[in-house]
């Protein structure tokens, strides 16, 4: 019974979008580490992407709203730091979603999401959010964001 509900919670969490990159869910982002059941309470373990990322607070609120709207009230969100979040947890499907959205997914070679060129130049190590850097394509000349590997 609880296992069934745990699967349901995972399904619901998979509908909560990342506040900054709405094409991927918090599950796809890799920040939901575990869902367990103890003392009549579901414990959802969350790890931050970057220590100070404001989206972490935002998606915690979104998760609370989503679960409550779906009739789940006995849950707790727990922040875990270990193991530290890594972009390695992103699946190829998630990376493809990022690329289609116009963000170059984390990889050793930075490929332009517009024209697939590998001739790209770093403009700034830091971008509009903690997880991204700014690049420019030397072929199509479009600037774009790159999801940093950490």
């Amino acid at each position, binding site marked *: 019974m609880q296992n069934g509900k745990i699967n349901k919670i995972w399904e619901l969490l998979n509908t909560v979008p990342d506040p900054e990159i709405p094409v991927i869910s918090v599950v796809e982002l890799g920040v939901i580490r575990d869902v367990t059941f103890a003392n009549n309470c579901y414990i959802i373990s969350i790890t*931050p992407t*970057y*220590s*100070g*990322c*404001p989206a972490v607070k935002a998606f915690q609120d979104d998760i609370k709203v989503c679960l409550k709207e779906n009739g789940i009230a006995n849950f707790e969100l727990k922040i*875990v*730091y*270990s*193991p*530290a*979040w890594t972009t390695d947890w992103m699946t190829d499907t998630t990376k493809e979603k990022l690329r289609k959205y116009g963000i170059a997914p984390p990889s050793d070679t930075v490929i332009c999401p517009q024209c697939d060129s590998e001739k790209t130049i770093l*403009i*700034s*190590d*830091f*971008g*509009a959010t*903690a997880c991204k850097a*700014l690049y420019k394509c030397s072929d199509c000349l479009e600037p774009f964001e790159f999801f*940093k590997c*950490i």
Partner: protein
Amino acid sequence: MSSLFTYTLRIADSSLILGQRMAEWCAKGPTLEEDIAFSNISLDMFGQANGFYEYAAQLDDSKSADDLAFLRNEREFFNHQMVEIENEHFGNTIVRNFLHDAFNLLFYTKLSESKDETLAALAAKSLKEVKYHLRHSTNWLIRLGDGTEESNAKAQKSLDNIWQFTAELFEMDKIDTELLNAGIAVDNKALKLEWDKIVNSTLTKAKLKRPEDGYMATGGKKGMHTEYLGFLLAEMQFLQRAYPDAKW
């Protein structure tokens, strides 16, 4: 106050104060990219500080993380004096951050092996971010040092001024030693050799001269600070002091 509480607070304080200094650059950066870079670094620092404050608050039930950040006075802060000195110009900020980032990289590498699981986890998380910060400050230090005559002279002058705050990073007091023996704390002294290597190799690339050790400042661990910290706290803590428990 337990030793572990004080030790955790010291780490949090250095991150918070440097984060506040970086935040002062917001909307004042020399270019849009650098404005964004400093704001990002500031956020990382606040996030790291928050993690350590939350842990400290668990160790001392009477205080919340916010109480620790906003309701302590100057003498109750234990950060390195280096992080509280003023930003001044861009090059001065870069020099200060570079010296501190290089220390942080080594410090968090070691702390991530701590027997205290929470400190180890927070350190491993912070380390990933600090690597990025050091890359940023290193690249800029080289560009400024090996740039124009003026940028070199300004960077050298900042380096000469800030150098007095470097010795404190490697100090060990009773609390450090007690926790080091327990397998929890980092041996700061032992980081010096590796720090020297990073600093020397970058300064050579940047065509800057490593200053001689002269008068070396000390006291952060005991709550002794430069004249700058009080002003920083006055601005940072104003809202919580004037409107206690204000929420929005």
